[in-house]
């Protein structure tokens, strides 16, 4: 895919999204309500309209090839970039999916303290190709620091999925 194609795709998707937002905004009154002023849909409706106009502007530039991006025939992703960035993005999505409830076929998530070590394992071992010693040290130290910092110092409870019960003894000692 060239940069030019990507520019067209992004502008098209955003055009559709703008139209959808206009339609959704119009579910609330977009006109003048006596003694109340502009209706609740007024502001998002006209701003979505501005989004739509901007998208059309971008598309016109694309057709006329009047910006550097719309002329560029270079690949949108340089060799290797798509795999590298895509892998990390996918790993992030899987990590968040594992945080809580959204397991596969009734299988609950393994929580932050299950997902973070897996993410670190993936990144340090398979992306960074670091040694096992460093990988395992990070897999232990970073979640422990996270727990002490967020849950104990800041009292912010992080999602734990099916591992919730394992933390009860810790709470009794530390809180």
């Amino acid at each position, binding site marked *: 895919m060239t940069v030019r194609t990507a520019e067209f795709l992004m502008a098209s998707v955003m055009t559709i999204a703008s139209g959808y937002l206009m339609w959704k905004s119009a579910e609330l009154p977009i006109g003048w309500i006596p003694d109340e*002023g502009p209706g609740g849909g007024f502001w998002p409706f006209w701003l979505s309209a501005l989004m739509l106009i901007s998208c059309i502007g*971008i598309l016109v530039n694309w057709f006329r090839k*009047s910006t550097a991006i719309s002329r560029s025939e270079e690949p949108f992703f340089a060799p290797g970039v798509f795999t590298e960035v895509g892998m990390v993005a996918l790993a992030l999505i899987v990590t968040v999916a594992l945080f809580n409830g959204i397991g596969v076929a009734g299988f609950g998530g393994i929580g932050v303290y299950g997902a973070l070590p897996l993410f670190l394992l993936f990144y340090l071992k398979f992306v960074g190709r670091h040694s096992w010693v460093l990988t395992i040290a990070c897999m232990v130290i970073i979640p422990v620091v996270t727990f002490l910092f967020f849950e104990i110092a800041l009292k912010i409870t992080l999602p734990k999925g099916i591992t919730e019960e394992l933390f009860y003894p810790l709470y009794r000692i530390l809180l």
Partner: protein
Amino acid sequence: MGEIINLLLDGFTIAFQPLNLGLILIGCTIGLFIGAMPGLGSVNGVAILLPLTFLVPPTGAIMFLAAIYYGAMYGGAISSIMLGIPGASTAVATTFDGRPLAKQGMADKALTAAAVASFVGGTISVVLFTFFAPPLAHVALVFGAPEEFSLMMLAFATFVGLGGDDIWKTLFSIAIGLVLAAVGLDIVSGEPRLVFGGITGFMHGINFLVLAIGIYGIGEMLWTIEEHTKAGGKSMLSEATITWQRTVANLKELLGTWKTALMGSFLGYFVGILPAAGATPGSLMAYGIGKQISAKPDDFGKGAVDGVVAPEAANNAASTGSMLPMLTLGIPGSPTTAILLGGMVIWGLEPGPRLFTDHKEFVWGLIASLYAANFFAVILNILFIPAFIWVLKLPFTILAPIIFILCLIGGYAPTQDLHDVWLMLLFGIVGYLMRKLDYPLAPAVLAIVLGPLAEPALRQSLLISSGDMSIFFTRPYSGPIMIAALILLFLPVLQILIRRIRGSRQSPASSDDTPGSEWQG
């Protein structure tokens, strides 16, 4: 005058309380490191660490965040110079000459120049801030809903006027930010709007942090991974040696750049004050003007010390300047101050003219802390130069997962809703793709913060005037501001027209390869 000095002295007694002094020192250090990390700037540091500030009183919290902001402004230059990757958008102009200097084995000269210029810019701007904040706050007292809305328009117009090449993309970015800010319950009727089929996570609206961490955390890291991959997985490190003799010689050479430093400081401060302009355009403009007033303009881009001094003085001055409209008018001058503003609202402080009368200790404590932060930052920066070089040598593949984890947890912490973490990931990935297509994303972050302020201002104004738009032009303060906003808004269109009239057949995009050229026109 005497009153200001008294208030400032009171501020110093607050800033010098052990807890606050400690927070300033820690903030400066964190800021320096965050700023020095490629892909992370003050905006990331402030966004990620904002949730942590709920532990201390608001005065301490703002000092901590302001110190991070300041420290990052110093630190941003470090990766620009050492790696050629701007540590933050504010340090983009620093790469133009900082990187060539480093390649010539003079990284220490560039780093010292950046630190000293930052100190000059910071100090001049804090002095200006001390004496100009109260009068402006006074003027701001007469501001009503129409004036507020006109100012918001000015803020957005500055972005369009000073912004990137593609006006449509800037406009799109502003509009999408404002629409995202409209998600949730309508402030007047209380009806849910844009909740996409009643998804409960949208009912509480989209927190600006979700967009900010998405774009500046996740999106920026994905972008850095791309740069890293393109570079063959190797950090492009420079050799640097530091000796006393070299440092003394560097400082002597710096004396010759005082004109550039002064120009950068004043320009940066005033650009910083402009709502929504902030340190990035400030530093780019300073670079452009620095080149024009230089005796040797041809050296710019090849390793001119003035080319490092100008943007660095300007970005620090602008970072102070952009706090002025944030505090006095409640309008942020940069994405980072937008986040600071959001923080103040969460702490229960209403930014605006009344802040100066209702929360004197907060305002003057903050101003005094800026003096302290500036002093600490320059000392720390020079002392830590060897340490920065070491941290930057840490493999990127160790830094990256740690930053990602901070983003995920940081996105969850404010609302404790996984829905927001998903949104953040979505914004991060889409933001990364848009950035690859040159969509400016900072306007969207500003817009999501300003949206909840701009909408009520517009609706109230229209209620006052029974729907007559002329209210924005007929009031004494609102009129000129609105006209300035419209001029700025249509400036790019005028420029294009002028270019056409001149019959220049050169396409507008061909100026892309000369960085900063668009600021000189």
